[in-house]
């Protein structure tokens, strides 16, 4: 049991370090595109470490199952949300998410 406790503590410590580093990254990066890179470690890696810590403490039981369920939803949501956020920021900045080639007006915009 002591080995399990130590292993669980190490996993929790790693998760906290990742969240702390990511939060500082969100604060220090220049624009929203760069800040978004630091959401992924806190949204995917740290939860996986927390769920592993719960698994080490409890083994396969009800609480571990629900923790895995929460992790599953976060893994599912993370990439979609990141993509949607980048797309929205780009639409706000340029009016269209597609890359316009030089001299070409993006579809949906009228040429003047």
């Amino acid at each position, binding site marked *: 049991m002591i080995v399990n406790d130590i292993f669980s503590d190490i996993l929790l410590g790693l998760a906290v370090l990742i969240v702390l580093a990511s939060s500082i990254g969100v604060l220090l990066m220049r624009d929203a595109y760069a800040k978004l890179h630091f959401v992924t470690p806190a949204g995917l890696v740290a939860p996986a470490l927390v769920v592993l810590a719960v698994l080490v403490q409890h083994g396969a039981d009800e609480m571990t199952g629900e923790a895995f369920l929460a992790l599953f939803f976060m893994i599912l949501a993370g990439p979609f949300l990141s993509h949607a956020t980048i797309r*929205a920021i780009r639409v706000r900045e340029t009016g269209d998410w597609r890359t316009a080639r030089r001299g070409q007006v993006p579809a949906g915009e009228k040429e003047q």
Partner: protein
Amino acid sequence: MVMPFVAAAIAMLIATIPAGVVLYRGELAASVVAYEFITSVVVMVLALLAEAFKRPSLFELPVLLAVLLFGSGLVFVRAMERWL
């Protein structure tokens, strides 16, 4: 083994302070990113507290918030894209 999980939950809440500063002071796009970050961390905090106090029923909260994270994030993102 209550203490490590509670300590981790408290440490994670403290770690959200820099992102909270961005949420409060940053421009709109950066605030949405900080909101997504903080929601992800709160899912973990709820899971850690449920584990710390050995309440299996409380594990429904992080599961629910993980589902809502997707929906609420998309609502904010679409609002930012279209109206804000």
